[in-house]
């Protein structure tokens, strides 16, 4: 981890307390993102990938209390323990956010132009008319067709792809250094997804933003990310450069996920490859490796001791007792 990282998490744990339960969806997670690079956080539902990114920003449902431990530094500021008021200055300003479902993230009773302009007024101190002019510029930046007319439209008048473009315009309106995108293309069709990813890559280059992309789609990861963190049951199980992780996965979970993707050479009617068992249910932290019940390489030690993240010579870190043991390294790759 370099010293000048824009965002750096160190042993970050998050406990959630609701009316009924106490959960630990994020358990001692460490990662870093440099300016202008993209980190993809990959995991299934319940892996803690969304909580990891939004709880430190104070974006949790009402009635849920998040308790943070460890450290999450953005620029030179420690976000853990920051007051709600101080967090507000970062949210929408230096840290932009994009959500999975643009329809529920946009205000249905406010015109698109106004929603974008608000950000400029709040974070850049622009006047209303300056901010509206800037909103028009931003719509052009996100390559919205017919931007003048879009300013005056409401979210329900736009298609899914256009709504997501409006979301992106809002997210970059505060000139963020970091953009957190939670499954930005999951609700979209593949043809639109390709356009949105191309747009995000272009914006990143022009604005020199760092992007943290939360996704479960390995294709999206391959097309935009430079680094990948694979999460399972609230822990990072593999962390490294995108080529190393996708082409030579070390952790059996990552390997299983990648092997599960259908390939063109699979014969029609042939069986699909997958992982056995079911994803873990969030609950109290476990002593051993949470993937042990589904793991093909499982050994006795796995259910007793939490595997540490160990960095191999290839540069990727994996949290697995078995692959980090030299004797088994070749087996894990097979």
């Amino acid at each position, binding site marked *: 981890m370099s010293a000048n990282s824009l965002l750096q998490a160190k042993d970050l744990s998050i406990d959630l307390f609701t009316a009924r339960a106490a959960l630990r969806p994020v358990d001692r997670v460490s990662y870093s993102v440099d300016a202008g690079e993209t980190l993809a956080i990959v995991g299934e539902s319940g892996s803690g990938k969304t909580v990891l990114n939004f709880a430190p920003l104070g974006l949790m449902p009402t009635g849920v209390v998040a308790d943070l431990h460890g450290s999450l530094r953005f620029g030179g500021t420690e976000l853990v323990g920051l007051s709600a008021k101080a967090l507000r200055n970062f949210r929408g300003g230096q840290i932009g956010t994009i959500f999975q479902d643009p329809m529920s993230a946009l205000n249905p009773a406010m015109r698109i132009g106004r929603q974008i302009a608000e950000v400029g007024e709040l974070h850049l101190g622009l006047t209303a008319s300056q901010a509206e002019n800037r909103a028009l510029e931003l719509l052009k930046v996100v390559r919205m067709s017919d931007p003048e007319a879009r300013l005056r439209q409401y979210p329900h008048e736009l298609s899914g792809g256009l709504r997501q473009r409006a979301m992106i315009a809002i997210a970059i309106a505060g000139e963020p250094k970091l953009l957190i995108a939670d499954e930005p293309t999951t609700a979209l069709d593949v043809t639109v997804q390709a356009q949105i990813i191309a747009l995000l890559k272009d914006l990143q280059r022009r604005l020199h933003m760092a992007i943290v992309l939360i996704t479960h789609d390995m294709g999206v990861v391959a097309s935009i990310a430079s680094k990948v963190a694979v999460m399972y049951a609230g822990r990072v199980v593999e962390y490294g450069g995108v080529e190393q992780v996708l082409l030579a996965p070390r952790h059996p979970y990552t390997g299983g996920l990648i092997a599960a993707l259908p390939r063109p050479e699979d014969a*029609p009617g042939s069986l*699909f490859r997958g992982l056995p068992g079911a994803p873990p249910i969030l609950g109290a932290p476990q002593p051993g490796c949470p993937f042990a019940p589904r793991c093909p390489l499982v050994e006795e030690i796995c259910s007793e001791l939490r595997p540490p993240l160990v960095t191999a010579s290839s540069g990727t870190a994996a949290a697995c007792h078995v692959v980090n043991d030299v004797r088994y390294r070749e087996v894990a790759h097979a």
Partner: protein
Amino acid sequence: MPDVAPLLSIQNLVTRFKSVERGKWITAVDDVSISLAPGEMVGLVGESGCGKSTLGRSIVGLEKPQSGSVIYDGVDLSTLSGRALRQKRRAIQYVFQDPYASLNDRQTIGETIAEALIIIGINDKAEHARLIHTLLDQVGLPASLAERYPRELSGGQRQRVAIARSLAVEPRVLICDEPVSALDLSIRAQVMNLFLKLHKELNVACLFIAHDLALVRQATSRTYVMYLGRIIEEGRSDELYARPSHPYTQALLASIPSADPRIEANRPPPSIFGEIPSPTNPPSGCRFRTRCPQAMEICAATPPEAVRLTPSHSARCVIAGDIYQKNKAADHVEPVPA
């Protein structure tokens, strides 16, 4: 087309909805003809809003078609009514996308399945227990689950229950509307393999409605591609995916990102822009022409006829023949779907 007589044949089906604008109609399914042979796995792919779900719902009678016919086992279902229709239509069952919405929260799994058994006239409690056990076993669930409520089950388990329920009436056709898209990546393969197993063991025909092209390619023997209410290309799955001959199918396949970052680094920018236009006012002539990179003047004039490329492969595009030949000449490299 399959050689045997089709089990289910949809002919010139049109389904329209009233638009919010007065006097206007949205034609969601426009003159669609498809067929399924007994025990055949067929895919239906397209973007959201193309009418693929409406087509599926029209087949089972959840929407009322404006015109056209649904012919099952040689009988036009629109000529039947009442009890006769219900009995005939029972052979066609529907599996919904969202297993969180398609099961009744207040019924146990056993009660859910028993309801289907009562409909087919089985009222004996002991017989229910036996059949529920068999059905749960068929979909790979333990019999003890019969006492549980849907809220106690995971998404994958719920979808298995939904499948067991539709199998209870011994259907010959399953219409599966995005049956795995609500499920986690690692669970999808398990449910897809269940479909393949049921297909092999029970010889049920499946119409697989999905937007995940890679999944459809591997699961089905034939595929229909739908755009804005019309079938624009159809063919054997392996052939259609290796040599897509409609510019839309080509664009759809080219948009799937590969899981290999080395391929993605050199990916050309997307060839089609914008989104599917509103079906209230579809473009004249070929409906894809507004987004087509190869659109010509002729495309606006008349809807293109289906061009037959092989006995089983056809595409509705004026230049489909040329594209097909070009595909043949160039060693076509398929993207690795993700």
